[in-house]
């Protein structure tokens, strides 16, 4: 089973209804490389090899013109 079908299989196995990608460099990457990265991401997620997204930005920093 190649990586392309592995990610597609993962989507189907998990009942996914929609997927969107944001490629790092679409002029250089292949479709298979995007899917390979996607598959690595979901496997990392499943194995807990990830951290929650956090944004420490203080949104009380108003610009002077306000």
């Amino acid at each position, binding site marked *: 089973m190649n990586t392309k079908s592995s990610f597609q299989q993962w989507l189907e196995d998990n009942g996914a209804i929609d997927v969107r*990608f944001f490629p790092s460099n679409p002029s250089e990457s292949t479709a298979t490389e995007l899917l390979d990265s996607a598959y690595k991401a979901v496997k990392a997620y499943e194995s807990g090899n990830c951290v929650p997204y956090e944004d420490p*930005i203080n949104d009380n920093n108003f610009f002077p013109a306000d």
Partner: protein
Amino acid sequence: MEKVIFEARAMRTKYLESCTGSRQPVAINTEKFAKVVEKETGYSVESIIINDMEHLRGMIVRFPEKKAIVFVSDHNNDCWRRFTFIKEISHLFIETTPECFNSDAYEQAKALVDQYQTQDDVSDESRKLLRAEVIGLVAAMEIMIPNELIPYIAHLSNVEKMLPYAIASRLRAPQKFLEFKMRQHDIAINTPPN
């Protein structure tokens, strides 16, 4: 794209009402923005940073019963990470009906790379998939670099003579999209002295 911009601005307004007393911050807190999106759309979103995601800045996967996972690559710098997160979250409130959804990963990936790598005419289906990505980018730009910030950006560039990199750092947004906005509004882009 007018509808996309309208929706993005409306969601940003809800965020401002909820988090800043409707005042305009130099940089929004993207995590709080996502909470507002969850509240407004009914989605339950898990958002994670992934280390091993070389060819993607980010990705969103949606599941039934309004569940979604947003993946953001650790390879992004802080500005790109925030932009990527907002771009992915934006799909939740802009593409709201099943006919907008796509679960064919290969077609999605192929459409994204083919736009740069093939001279062939793209199919209607590819065009639709690409439009979905552009929608996310347009929405993220509108949310992170709104028109309300334009006078401030113009001041930083024209009066304080700041370079775009420094302005982007202050806004915590990617320089590429800041420069796009500056060109849209005819703001001079300073270049480093020789």
